[in-house]
């Protein structure tokens, strides 16, 4: 019998590999709502809290719990609850609490601005395995330039404090944009102050629903992005060790093999960035939706000849989702990723 702590990440990767070989839906994401109390210009999903068209399409607690039961029967172990912002849902705990007794390793994504003492108390009664709090800046001005909501920085700090005070397992994850890139170090310092793990992501995707996006004004330049990435030894090792893209598969992640996403309407998709195939779980059941997703992934195009022949492919993160979001087709190069891959090659090959 062994308790996994130090080598947890390695063990999870092993489980994912096993699950992918068995086509077991090990990791699920439930996007409980598309609505959020922030209005970040780089967000790929957010809708206003009062969006009545979205509200009427959201699933009830009973339906989410039934989906989870069916997913468990098929082998789901890891469950991420995300939005939008999960705490805009008045019935969040009607969904969450039953899930905590079903044997999943649950993670929550939140901006923490709606986490009051009362909500933190309820979470502490049946805590998730991890809460990842999104961070958009290290001071009021920067944070609220990104979120476009006055008062949101102070509420976020209070929310994090409330969670930390109750010993809930919290991590901070910064979304890096042109507006807050200068505060990356300061955000890391905030995490150290609380003794919390910190991650930063800068690879911003377009909205999956086709609504207008201000992504171009938010994305880092390739040289800015790779300068940040190069400070992460794990990322450098991954890219210098042969990269992530498979020449024989289409999706190099575990989408449709060991993972899935169900959006707030109950549609099962490849990932949060790619709203396909849209198999309606409440109508056809989890198993049939999972089979539809697997067929979709198996039938998706592999790397285009253009990408296969490219001399920076080992430094690229191209996949059908990126091709679709940027170009409307599931194969072919993406200018932003090409620029990043060239920057990686320049940086990492000169380090050898």
């Amino acid at each position, binding site marked *: *019998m*062994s*308790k*996994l*702590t130090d080598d*947890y990440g390695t*063990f999870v990767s*092993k*489980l994912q590999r*096993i*699950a992918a*070989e*068995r086509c*077991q839906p*090990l990791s699920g994401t439930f996007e409980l709502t598309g609505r959020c109390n922030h209005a970040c210009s780089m967000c790929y999903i957010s809708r206003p809290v009062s969006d009545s068209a979205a509200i009427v399409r959201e699933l009830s607690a009973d339906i989410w719990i039934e989906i989870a039961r069916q997913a468990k029967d098929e*082998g789901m*172990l890891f469950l991420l609850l995300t939005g939008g912002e999960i705490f805009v849902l008045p019935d969040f705990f009607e969904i969450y609490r039953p899930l*905590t*007794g*079903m*044997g*999943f*390793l649950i993670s929550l994504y939140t901006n923490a601005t709606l986490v009051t003492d009362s909500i933190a108390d309820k979470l*502490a*009664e*049946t*805590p*998730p*395995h991890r809460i990842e709090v999104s961070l958009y800046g290290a001071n009021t001005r920067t944070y609220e330039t990104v979120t476009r909501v006055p008062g949101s920085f102070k509420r976020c700090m209070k929310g994090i404090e409330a969670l930390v005070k109750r*010993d809930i*397992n919290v991590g901070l994850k910064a979304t890096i944009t042109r507006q807050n890139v200068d505060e990356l170090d300061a955000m890391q310092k905030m995490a150290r102050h609380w003794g919390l793990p910190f991650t930063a992501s800068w690879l911003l995707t377009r909205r999956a629903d086709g609504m207008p996006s201000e992504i171009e004004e938010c994305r880092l330049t390739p040289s800015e992005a790779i300068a940040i990435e190069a400070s992460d030894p794990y990322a450098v090792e991954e890219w210098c060790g042969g990269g992530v893209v498979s020449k024989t598969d289409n999706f190099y992640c575990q989408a449709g093999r060991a993972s899935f996403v169900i959006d707030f309407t109950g549609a099962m998709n490849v990932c949060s960035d790619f709203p396909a195939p849209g198999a309606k779980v409440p109508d056809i059941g989890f198993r049939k939706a999972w089979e539809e997703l697997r067929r979709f992934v198996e039938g998706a195009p592999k790397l285009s000849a253009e990408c296969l022949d490219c001399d920076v492919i080992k430094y690229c993160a191209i996949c059908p989702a990126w091709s679709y979001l940027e170009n409307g087709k599931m194969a072919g190069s993406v200018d932003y990723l090409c620029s990043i891959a060239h920057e990686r090659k320049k940086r990492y090959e000169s380090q050898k």
Partner: protein
Amino acid sequence: MIRKESFLLQTVGGENLLVPVGAQVMDTNGIITLNETAAFIWDLLEKDCTIDDLAAAIADRFEVTMEQAVSDVRSFVDKLDQNGLLE
């Protein structure tokens, strides 16, 4: 002895995983892995069992001597107790 109800046994491939549920997550955040024998004992501990009950079941299932089974069961039960997995 009987196992705590605040853990559920899940399997992925051949891996047996004990996952804490509810408030137990605060004390045991992560997964505990069990080998085949340990998972078998965990299943039996759904009902109140003695060391001898467990050892007899192990000896029968895995074709080991009663003496070896008692030793294995004691060792595993100690670990369960140390990790707070027993009532």
